[in-house]
């Protein structure tokens, strides 16, 4: 066969399979929404999943938020003191965390910590034919398995992002006030004046909610779609991280451009 023809057909195959995957992921998303009434009837399943996705991610979120905040404090101070406005460091740390780093870094960590776990779990369930067994018993796997995990992810993400931002601000405070010696009052009051509740805090929450939906549905879909082999599950887990990270960064740009334009 002509090598150019081969390359072209390969490319076309790649594109159609991507579009096919996007379509079936969207179908899974809508099915999850439709079945979510049934999933909410057994709320303890969702609570159990919040424990595994949200509570278990707390440690990594808190530790990374603390370091991110401290680094922001150091870097911000280094640049701001050149312009003689080192008191604005509180504003810088708070706005950077609330608007961008809080939602985005939380989503990236969430994809790595909880997303992979969801994909591997569901992929393995599929490989061991637990999902087919459920269908045999007339229990919808979407209502019983996918729904609770989806809602757990969507609920956990904004909570984790708020915790991330708050801990990050505390990390920034620790570097700026006791270590560098920025005035305590100026740090908080400048922050208070320049951070708006509606435009900064609420927009950050909206972002993290959208990221929660995206990350969780990607992880669920990859697990649901994984070939039922050991290799298939491991590949699906890798794809979860790559796809979620790229989606989060892309969505972040789109959401930010909407929010800045208001």
């Amino acid at each position, binding site marked *: 066969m002509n090598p150019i023809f081969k390359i072209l057909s390969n490319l076309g195959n790649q594109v159609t399979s991507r579009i096919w995957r996007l379509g079936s992921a969207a179908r899974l998303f809508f099915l999850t929404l439709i079945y979510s009434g049934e999933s909410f009837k057994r709320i*303890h399943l969702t*609570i*159990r999943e*919040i*424990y595994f996705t*949200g*509570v278990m991610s*707390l440690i990594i979120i808190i530790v990374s938020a603390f370091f991110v905040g401290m680094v922001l404090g150091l870097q911000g101070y280094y640049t701001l003191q050149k312009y003689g406005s080192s008191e604005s460091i509180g504003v810088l740390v*708070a706005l950077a965390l*609330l608007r961008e780093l809080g939602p985005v870094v939380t989503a990236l960590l969430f994809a790595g910590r909880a997303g992979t776990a969801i994909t591997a779990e569901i992929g393995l369930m599929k490989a061991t034919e637990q999902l087919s067994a459920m269908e045999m018993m007339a229990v919808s796997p979407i209502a019983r398995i996918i729904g609770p995990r989806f809602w757990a992810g969507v609920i*956990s993400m*904004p*909570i*984790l992002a*708020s*915790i991330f*931002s*708050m*801990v990050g*601000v505390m990390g920034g405070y620790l570097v700026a006030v006791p270590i560098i010696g920025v005035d305590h009052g100026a740090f*908080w009051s400048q*922050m*208070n*004046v320049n*951070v*708006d*509740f509606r435009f*900064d*805090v609420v927009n950050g*929450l909206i972002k993290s909610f959208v990221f929660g939906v995206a990350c969780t549905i990607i992880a669920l879909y990859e697990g649901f779609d994984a070939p039922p082999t050991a290799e298939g599950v491991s590949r699906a887990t890798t794809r979860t991280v790559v796809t979620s990270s790229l989606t989060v960064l892309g969505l972040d740009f789109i959401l930010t451009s909407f929010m800045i334009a208001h």
Partner: protein
Amino acid sequence: MDKTTLDIWVGLFVAIGIAALMGLAMKVGNLTSNTLGETYSVYANYENIGGLKPRAPVKSSGVVVGRIDNIKFDTKAYQAVVTLKIDKRYPFPKDTFANIYTSGLLGEQYISLEAGGDDHFLKEGDRISKTQDAVVLEKLISQFLYNKATEEPKK
């Protein structure tokens, strides 16, 4: 793990989340400092408002007494009409000056109220007649150059 311990952990998780959000709203954000009590609205006309924006503070002696509600353009007088929302606790006399100042060299602009000596106080819907526009740097420079040029040459 049994159901009650699970519930406790999840409840704790949600509680920490809500606490963090409250912290962000109160301590980091301006949800508390921003809320004025009951307010009354007064209007002020300006030839030029410079970079004044809605929600900018209205100060008197440096204390925030209100906020700018909105800024419109009056096509009859070709002037900017600024609506000021002032806290009911702070009544101002009718002949109050409303000047646009800049905080710091490059900071945000705000309206400063300087009380006059009138016995009557401003009411809802009143118009402040004594206003002073924002300082435009270009105008200032051209005025300075004009004054320099008209100065008597030194002998």
